[in-house]
């Protein structure tokens, strides 16, 4: 294990993970709080191709800058997230990948987030063989994360997802093309999602047997269209000319749904390896695991976040300004946060709590209240053995409250 070795401070060491943020979507979903701009039908409007091209150039330029600025080694993981990366289309995605290909380890995990409406046969074929470079021998495709949200159109509609493509068909096409690792992205706790409807989504997932499942509870962020709609629903208890919007689910209904899907997926052989993530053996998302293990990573693209050592920075979210800066040879604007040792240790703990990763006690002892630790261990929320702390599955259900409890009181901080 880590016997005798000094634990490496969180986010320290050479960079081996890169996240690329693709900040474009066809239309904004009602619940979306991501850095993303709506570009309509995708590729058809006159300045959109130029925007996309400028974006790809920008990523390449930013990568060169950042690679020079940090101790970057061969990448173990590369993640293209969004937004909607698939909106770029196979050609531009291929161009993007070309930028990184020389810097990947042979076993590197490359993930691309895809929306069902973009997962046509052409895309599927690219995804299945995208990593085939001339003379490289191994035929390894990318890992796909398919944005399903729900298999039921009415629940997608409740989220304001307007595209009509059938996620099941998209999944089948990807599988048929030979994509070796497919993950599904789902949401639970959607207004109107009764326990029966949730059971339907669970059954479909188990039926499809994806390699990976990310199943998030709906987070209604302030300022989103959904938040406004739910606020209205609270105000109008029936009546009115317009159909009354569907109200939010009660907390305990959502909590029960969560327990239910955790149980169902676990029983079906999925490893519940993070609060919202499940994987069949060998299919954990290594990129995200690296993040939860507090490894350093670079984020490229508008709105992307990087954390290296004691510094975390966030690119400004405006794609045009970001691209213009890079085209002019300047670094895009970013906001920077310095992380002191205690802050990093707290993050280490809060991330580890989410996925049950073992943490050497000495790495977090400065920020953990020993009494709270003992009490939590007594209650079976954490286990402490051989100088290692691990949050149990029971503790994972209350990981946030547990961290609050474990953190040393601010006043007593050194």
């Amino acid at each position, binding site marked *: 294990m880590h016997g005798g070795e000094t634990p490496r401070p969180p986010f320290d060491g050479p960079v081996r993970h890169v996240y690329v943020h693709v900040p474009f979507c066809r239309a904004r979903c009602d619940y979306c709080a991501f850095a993303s701009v709506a570009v309509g039908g995708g590729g058809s409007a006159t300045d959109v191709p130029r925007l996309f091209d400028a974006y790809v150039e920008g990523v390449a330029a930013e990568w060169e800058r950042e690679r020079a600025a940090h101790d970057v080694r061969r990448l173990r993981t590369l993640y293209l997230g969004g937004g909607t990366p698939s909106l770029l289309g196979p050609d531009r995605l291929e161009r993007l990948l070309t930028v990184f290909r020389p810097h990947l380890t042979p076993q590197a995990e490359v993930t691309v987030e895809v929306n069902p409406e973009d997962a046509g046969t052409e895309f599927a074929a690219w995804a299945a063989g995208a990593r085939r470079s001339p003379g490289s021998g191994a035929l390894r495709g990318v890992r796909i994360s398919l944005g399903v949200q729900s298999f039921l159109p009415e629940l997608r509609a409740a989220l304001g997802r307007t595209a009509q493509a059938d996620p099941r068909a998209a999944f089948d096409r990807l599988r048929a093309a030979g994509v070796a690792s497919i993950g599904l992205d789902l949401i639970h706790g959607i207004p109107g999602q009764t326990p029966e409807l949730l059971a339907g989504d669970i059954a479909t997932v188990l039926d499809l047997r994806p390699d990976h499942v990310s199943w998030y509870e709906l987070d209604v962020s302030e300022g989103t269209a959904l938040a406004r709609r739910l606020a209205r629903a609270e105000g109008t208890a029936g009546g009115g000319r317009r159909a009354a919007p569907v109200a939010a689910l009660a907390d305990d209904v959502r909590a029960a749904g969560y327990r239910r899907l955790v149980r169902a997926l676990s029983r079906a052989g999925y490893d519940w390896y993070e609060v919202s993530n499940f994987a069949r053996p060998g299919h954990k998302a290594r990129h995200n695991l690296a*993040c939860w293990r507090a490894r350093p990573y670079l984020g490229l693209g508008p709105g992307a976040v990087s954390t290296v050592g004691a510094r975390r920075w966030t690119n400004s979210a405006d794609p045009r300004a970001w691209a213009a800066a890079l085209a002019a040879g300047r670094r895009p604007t970013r906001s920077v946060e310095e992380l002191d040792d205690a802050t990093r240790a707290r*993050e280490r703990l809060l991330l580890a709590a989410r996925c049950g990763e073992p943490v050497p006690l000495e790495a977090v002892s400065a920020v953990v209240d020993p009494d709270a630790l003992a009490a939590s261990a007594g209650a079976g929320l954490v286990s402490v053995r051989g100088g290692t702390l691990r949050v149990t599955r029971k503790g994972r259900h209350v990981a946030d409250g547990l961290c609050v409890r474990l953190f040393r009181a601010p006043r007593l901080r050194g």
Partner: protein
Amino acid sequence: MAVVTPLDHIRNFSIIAHIDHGKSTLADRILERTGTVAPRDMKEQLLDKMDLERERGITIKSQAVRIAYAARDGQTYQLNLIDTPGHVDFTYEVSRSLAACEGAVLLVDATQGVEAQTVANAYLAVDNDLEIIPVLNKIDLPASDVPEAEMELHELTGATHDEILTISAKTGEGVDEVLEAVVQRTPPPEGDPTAPPRALIFDSEYDQYRGVIAYVRVVDGHFDRRQLVTLMSTGQGAEIEELGSFGPGMTPAERLETGEVGYIITGVKDVAQVRVGDTITDRRRPAGEALPGYKVVHPMVFTGLFPTEGDKFEELRDALEKLKLNDAALLYEPESSVALGFGFRCGFLGLLHMDIVRERLEREYGLELITTMPNVEYHAHLTGGGMAVVRNPAQMPEANSIERVEEPYVTASILVPSQFVGTIMELCQGRRADFVDMKYLSPERVEMHYRLPLAEIVLDFFDQLKTRTRGYASLDYDYSGYRASDLVKLDVLLAGEPVDALSLIIPRESAHQRGKALVTKLRQKIPRQLFEVPVQAAIGNKVVARETVKAVRKDVTAKCYGGDISRKRKLLEKQKEGKKRMKQLGVVEVPQEAFLAVLELEPGAKGR
């Protein structure tokens, strides 16, 4: 200044009254009409010095003032008006103040009639051989019923119609007659100017620059500046640095003569050395005997005071130290509680005294406090012999080592309109009270006597009395010693761990009901925890009530990638910050509000 008032031109008197019957207002009128205070210096209720007193309309400390009064007989008299505290908690102080007088104006609100403290004070005055001048006040009010109130006063004091004055302290009507009556009816002081000097301390006050100021009545001989004196109860010696009278401010003089009221400042810094009731005498020519009636008062009601913020302990200690300078009866000793941290177990003369101290700590010292349920001092007689004095329920010895527990009893006198007699009997029945006797003051008003545990009064007897009689009943009580009772210690357990601050000593028969109320309230006020928490009330090992705080089912946000991490961490840090006011009890986090709610459930813990 050097003019000596002959003894027969001195009158020392006080005004005694039930609260709100107009004592302070009458004092103000007197000061005004005698020109003691220029009208422009006249503040409402001048004698009530502390803000708190003025606000609450009660007198906490006695005050005194010297008045020059030109009487109708053409002579000018020196009147010394001694104000007395108006509450049962301070009965001893009242009795000492009265001991410094020869006469007392017994003031009764004609709209209310005689009340419990009127009676108690009248008896105190009689005990001190004072001439009582009965006065009916507030006759300007249409609601006043002079004939009825007169009958009650007659019943109480034996005074005839002609002897009872009727006034309005508000308009001033009849106030001159009060002054005349003081001069004509109050006997002059009787001391011996040539005997070894003796002065009665009827109050003392601490001044941060000058030390203790003793309020005195010179009984025999005289005192001079620079005189060497002795405090007779302790033998403590001192030199008089300054003395004088109150005009109303302190007015220095060279000498205090026989019969005069004034102040004496020595270098003594500790009020406990200059106790109310003690006698000052000359060191070289000491009196053979101290003045009668000296006793050290003991606190009767105890409570734990804890700062809501743990790091305010030192501040609390400093504040208590300062209050103690001026309050010899206040007792405090450090106490630590698992539940509430570091604080003090404090002893008070009664609930009002407690409220006053707490309020001053909060107001004058800016401290936020948690007060545990007040309790009395129990005497646990042990099977192996010996006795444990229990001022904090958590200190009660193990049940099997106790032979019997005794608690303090009081004799309560309750005055009510006669239609409430049944109500009172009913209330007293539920309060472990023994009926003593009952007497009609008039066909409409009854004085009832009961003997009951002080603990019942500390709990909520007074509030209940007021509620059930729509405010018409009044209460006064006197301590009457210790008696054995069937008492048990009720503990509250959270996740199996006793919460020391919530332990109670209560009669066995009410254990179940009180236990149930406590755990129910706690369960409601403790938020869901990360795991299930049983809340129990128990006597020893026997659980008498139980509830469960449910576990949180889910407390984790769904997503945490990249930029979410900072947001998430800050949120958790903020939540931690927000938990500063949570108390950690073993594995359970209890918000302070939960303690407050439970403590409030105990009605005696609230001020009145």
